[in-house]
C-alpha cells in the first residue's frame, strides 16, 4: 500500500466514523424520553405552540426520515435554528468556535513545547532534581481536575502576583481587529496590530496552561521512556562508535523514532483537552464553545446541543487524522505493513 492509498483510506475511515457519531448523537437526541419540543418551550407553553415546534423540527416524521432530513441539511450547512439564541446554529458556532480553537491550539503547543523538553531532560539526567520534578508534574497533572489548575494559576499569577490577565480574550480598551479568521492572533497579525497580538497572547497563557498541564506530564513521561529505549538500540551504539557528536546522535538518530509514540498519544490528549477546555473556559470567562455549550444545555436547545457535540467531535477527528499523517512522516514503514 503506498502513501496516497493510506491517506485516502484514513480519510474514508474518518468519514465513516463521522457518520457513526452523527447517528449516535442524533439517536440520543431523539430517543431520550420526553418531548424535546415541550422541554425546549417549558411547562407554560400552549399545546399549539408545542405542536408547531414539533412540525418545524420534523418531530412527527419517523426517525429514519428525521435523520435523512438532518444529514441533508447538514451538508447544506444548515444546522437548524437555535431555540436559545434564536439565530441559526451555524452562525453561533462560527462566532464561538474560533475562541476555543485558538485556546486548544495554544494548549497543544504548550503541551509539546514544555512536555517534550521536560521528558528529554529527565531522561538525560535520570533521578536528578529535574527528573523528580517531571515525575511529580506528570503524577499531579493526571489527577488534578483542570478547573483546579485554572483556579490555582489564577490565584498565583493574577491575584497574588498580578502579572497576567485572567478574563476574556483581550483587553476591552483595545480595538478588536476586523474579523477574518476569528483567531485573534492571526487577525491582529494580518492587520499588523502588534499591540492586540501581544495582549491576546498574554490572555491565552493562563487558560492554555491550565488545559495543557494534565497532558504535559503525559508527554514528558512518554518521551522519557521512549528515549531511554531508543538509546539502547544498536544503531545508537553504532553511531557512538563512529564518534558522532552527542548532539548529532540525539537530533539525527534518537529523537525521531523516540517521538513516534508521543505524537500518537498527542491525538488522544486532544480529546481530554477539548473536554477540559469546557471547564477552563468557564473559570476564565472565555467566550468559546464551552460557554455556548453550557448555555444551550441549560436551555435544552436541541439543535445547539447536537451541533456542539458534532463540531467538537469533528475537530477531534481531524486532529487525529493529522496526527496519523505526522506519524507516517516520522515512520514511513507504516504504509508497507498491511
Amino acid at each position, binding site marked *: 500500500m503506498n502513501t496516497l492509498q493510506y491517506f485516502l483510506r484514513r480519510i474514508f475511515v474518518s468519514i465513516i*466514523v463521522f457518520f*457513526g*457519531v452523527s*447517528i*449516535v*448523537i442524533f439517536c*440520543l*437526541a431523539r430517543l*431520550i424520553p*420526553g418531548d*424535546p419540543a415541550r*422541554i425546549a418551550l417549558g411547562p407554560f407553553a400552549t399545546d399549539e405552540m408545542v405542536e408547531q415546534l414539533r412540525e418545524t423540527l420534523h418531530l412527527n416524521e419517523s426517525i429514519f426520515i428525521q435523520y435523512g432530513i438532518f444529514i441533508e441539511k447538514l451538508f447544506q450547512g444548515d444546522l437548524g435554528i437555535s431555540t436559545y439564541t434564536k439565530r441559526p446554529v451555524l452562525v453561533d458556532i462560527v462566532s464561538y468556535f474560533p475562541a476555543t480553537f485558538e485556546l486548544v491550539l495554544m494548549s497543544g503547543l504548550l503541551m509539546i513545547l514544555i512536555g517534550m523538553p521536560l521528558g528529554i531532560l529527565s531522561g538525560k539526567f535520570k533521578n536528578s532534581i529535574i527528573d523528580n520534578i517531571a515525575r511529580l508534574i506528570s*503524577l*499531579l497533572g*493526571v*489527577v*488534578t*481536575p*483542570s*478547573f*483546579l489548575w485554572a*483556579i*490555582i494559576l*489564577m*490565584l498565583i499569577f493574577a*491575584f*497574588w502576583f498580578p502579572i497576567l490577565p485572567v478574563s476574556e480574550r483581550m483587553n476591552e480598551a483595545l480595538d478588536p481587529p476586523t474579523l477574518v479568521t476569528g483567531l485573534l492572533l492571526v487577525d491582529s497579525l494580518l492587520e499588523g496590530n502588534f499591540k492586540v497580538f501581544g495582549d491576546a497572547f498574554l490572555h491565552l497563557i493562563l487558560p492554555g496552561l491550565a488545559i495543557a498541564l494534565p497532558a504535559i506530564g503525559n508527554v514528558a513521561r512518554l518521551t522519557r521512556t521512549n528515549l531511554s529505549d531508543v538509546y539502547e538500540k544498536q544503531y545508537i551504539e553504532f553511531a557512538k562508535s563512529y564518534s558522532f557528536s552527542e548532539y548529532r546522535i540525539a537530533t539525527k538518530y534518537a529523537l525521531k523514532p523516540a517521538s513516534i509514540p508521543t505524537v500518537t498519544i498527542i491525538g488522544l490528549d486532544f*480529546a*481530554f483537552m*477539548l*473536554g*477540559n477546555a*469546557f*471547564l477552563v473556559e*468557564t*473559570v476564565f470567562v472565555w467566550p468559546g464553545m464551552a460557554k455556548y*455549550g*453550557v448555555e*444551550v*444545555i*441549560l436551555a*435544552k436547545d*436541541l439543535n445547539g*446541543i*447536537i451541533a*456542539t*457535540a458534532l463540531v*467538537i*467531535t469533528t475537530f*477531534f*477527528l481531524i486532529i487525529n487524522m493529522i496526527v496519523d499523517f505526522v506519524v507516517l512522516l516520522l515512520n514511513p514503514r507504516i504504509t508497507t505493513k498491511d
Partner: protein
Amino acid sequence: MNLFKSKYFYKFSRNPLSVVGLVIVTTIVILSIFAPFITPFPEHVGPFTDFANKSKPPSSTYIFGTDKIGRDIFTRVIFGYRISLTLGIVVLAIAVPIGVTMGLCAGYVGKKTEMILMRITDVFLAIPALVLALSIIGLLDRPNLFYTMIAVSMAWWPWYTRLIYNITRSVKTEGYIAAAEIMGASKMHIMFREILPNCLPSLLTKITLDLGFVILVGSSLSFLGLGAQPPTPDLGTMVAKGASVLPDTWWFSLFPGFAILIVVLGFNLVGDGLKDMFDVDV
C-alpha cells in the same frame, strides 16, 4: 491463604507510593462511611444557615473555614466524598458489565458480531468523554445526580469493551479454550468461565484507576452546574461556587478542589501499584 503474607501483597507493599495510595483511599472510605459521627457539624450538610459565622477563614473550630452562609466546609467536604464515591461505584457498576460483555462477545464470537460491536465502540470512543457526557445530560431533563451517573456510564463503557476485547483475542487461541470447545461447552461458559477469569487482573486494575477518574469527570460535570444540585454537598459544585469569589475567600473552592485531587490521587496510586503487582498494562 493469608492476603498479607502472599507474594502479591509483598510486591505491592514494596512500593511506598502504592501504600500511601492505599492509606489515602482507606481513610477516605472510612471517613465517608462514618461521616455523621466524625464530622464536627453534621447538621451543616443540608440547607443550614448561621450568618454569625459566615465566610470565616480556616481556624481551629472550622479547619477548612466556613462558606458564605456559615456552613463548615470540612463537614461538607467529607459528606461530598460520600456523593463522589457513590457516583464512582454506580457508574462503574453500570459501565463495566456492559463493556465486559460486549468485549467478550466481540472478541470470542468474531466475524460480523465483532465488526458491528467494535465499530460501535470506535464511534463512542471518537467523542471526547466529557463532551459526550455533557450532551447526554443536556438532552435529558433537569440535571441531577442520577442523570450524571447515567451520562458518565454511557461515556465510559467503550474503554472496557476495548480492554476486554484485546485480552479475549489473545486468550482465545489457548489450548484450554480449544479443549472446552471440544468438550461441547457453551459459548456463555467459555466467555464467562474460561476467558473472563483471565481478564480479572487487568479489569481490577482498570476499575481501581477509573474510580478516581470517574470521580474527576463527575466533579467536572457538577462544576459546570450539571451534576448534583444544591444543597447536596457536592465537591465540584462547591469549587464552582467559590470560583466566583476569588481571591478574597479562597478557601471556598481550594479545599473542596484539593479534596478531589486527593481522592483521585489515592485511587491512581493504588491502581499503579496493582499494575506493577499483576504486571498488566491497561
